[in-house]
């Protein structure tokens, strides 16, 4: 299986006006395989978003290497292919929508690739049906709700037929329903469209279904593992400044008080277990 992201000894520094270096990434090794769903966790300022921007060459490494689908991001000849391969969805959909009609917004990327007209229409159809927004083809994006706008932003990325999408806190501004919708859509893209997902989020419950979690702190990778390996490790969570998802927290607290429940990430299963207690 192809490696979609291969970051090795990756360092990145922001340079201030007076020439001071602030390292946001201090030597990071992260590999993501094709088709994987990886979530990156960590406190504000831990380097997650910086890493995301290195994936599709919005930032270039200060040291070390970032290779996306076999392409080194420092080689300028790769730039267009990298941008086609790795899509990004940011936090605020308002900053990502460029046109006044949904359809035109989605066409923006493919048009810039110089694709033939029919191909562009095919891609718009594909993108809109995948995000379940066919009915909004002729609407004005600014009249849509936050969740709908974010769907259109995702459709715009899908129209580029990416192999990988990085979601950088793409649900942070949404109401609970919008957040739920987008999360389901992200999982669908991974499952059905076989798109590799890198999800950056502060909502731990969004990550319990990920194949793998990467926990970052101060520009380093603190730990990688399955959600079960991360969320029941209190020491690690405390060190990374994270809070376990609700069910994990409650099952650990109950177990610590001598009540016989298993560590559990899923609230429904925990409820089932609690109801079996005598």
């Amino acid at each position: 299986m192809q490696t979609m992201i291969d970051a090795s000894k990756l360092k990145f520094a922001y340079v201030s006006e007076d020439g001071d270096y602030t390292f946001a990434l201090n030597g990071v090794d992260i590999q993501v395989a094709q088709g994987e769903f990886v979530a990156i966790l960590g406190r504000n300022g831990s380097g997650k978003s910086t890493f995301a921007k290195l994936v599709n060459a919005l930032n270039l490494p200060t040291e070390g290497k970032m290779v996306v689908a076999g392409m080194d991001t420092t080689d300028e000849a790769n730039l267009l292919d990298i941008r086609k391969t790795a899509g990004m969805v940011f936090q605020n959909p308002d900053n990502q929508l460029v046109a006044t009609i949904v359809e035109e917004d989605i066409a923006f990327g493919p048009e810039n690739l110089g694709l033939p007209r029919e191909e562009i229409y095919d891609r718009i159809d594909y993108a809109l049906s995948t995000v379940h927004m066919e009915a909004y083809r002729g609407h004005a994006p600014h009249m849509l709700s936050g969740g709908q706008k974010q769907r259109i932003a995702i459709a715009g990325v899908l129209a580029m037929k990416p192999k990988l999408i990085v979601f950088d806190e793409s649900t942070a501004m949404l109401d609970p329903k919008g957040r739920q919708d987008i999360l389901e859509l992200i999982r669908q893209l991974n499952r059905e469209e076989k798109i590799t997902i890198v999800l950056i989020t502060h909502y731990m419950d969004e990550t319990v279904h990920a194949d793998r979690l990467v926990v970052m702190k101060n520009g380093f990778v603190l730990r990688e593992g399955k959600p079960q390996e991360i969320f029941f490790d209190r020491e690690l969570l405390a060190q990374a400044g994270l809070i376990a998802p609700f069910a994990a927290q409650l099952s650990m607290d109950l177990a610590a008080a001598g009540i016989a429940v298993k560590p559990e990430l899923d609230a429904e299963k925990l409820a089932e277990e609690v109801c079996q207690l005598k």
Partner: protein
Amino acid sequence: MSIKVDHVSYTYMPGTPFEHQALYDVSFEIPDGDFVGIVGHTGSGKSTLVQIISGLIRGYEGHVYVNEIDFSDKKQDRRELRKQVGVVFQYPEYQLFEESVEKDIAYGPTKLGVDPKEVERRVKAAMDLVELDYDLFRDKSPFSLSGGQKRKVAIAGVLAMEPKILIMDEPIAGLDPMGRENFMQLARSLNECGITILMVSHNMDNLAEYTKHVLVMNDGRLFMQGTPEEIFSDYTRLREASLDLPEVAQFAQMLRSRGMDIPPHVIRYDQLKELLLQRFGGNAACCKM
């Protein structure tokens, strides 16, 4: 300081093809010292409402009284309102503009004509409240900070105005879980110092833990109001407003649906934990993290 919203309606761009009524006849009162959460789905009118209370939107129908002064009266001098009511918008870090953290925080009180010594005291106090080390951060450029730190600077800038009422629109969106928790604790301690707080948020869990009252907006109308216990245990009505229960209340509901007898109004984590420990004979003392 109290707030009274009396039959307020508001329409955006009336008489144009974009005419849109955002608020319909909204009335409520917030007593001095309250900590109120405002929830509602996108487009429910929350932000319009807080902008009206803050005096940023005019031309609405009805009256808004802050400390019993009617600020819907166009002749009313609104400088008093600006002094008493601090507003933290969504993504306040975008409001930063000065070359150093200290200057940015000092901007508001300096413009109010506060004595420089007093400004310095306020800047220190505000940075202390948001837990930014004065000596470490005062000379840094706000633009060199992380997202969470920038937000703290922006909020410190509002706190340096020493407002009696603090209105915050989605202040915890984009913060990490610890950041959210710390922020809510900051809001609580400000509230305990006597500041009336209005907080718009999508985060039901945090609101359930910290607020004293909750307003639910739905399609431009005040849909529910009450204590967090009342609001966050009414699944049916919250669903009507396209909202969700906090995780704890959802879990309580899961237990009830499996036949377990769980009292109503269980919405906070510690409540739920204590309840289960009591019922199943756990030892609460060893449960402390």
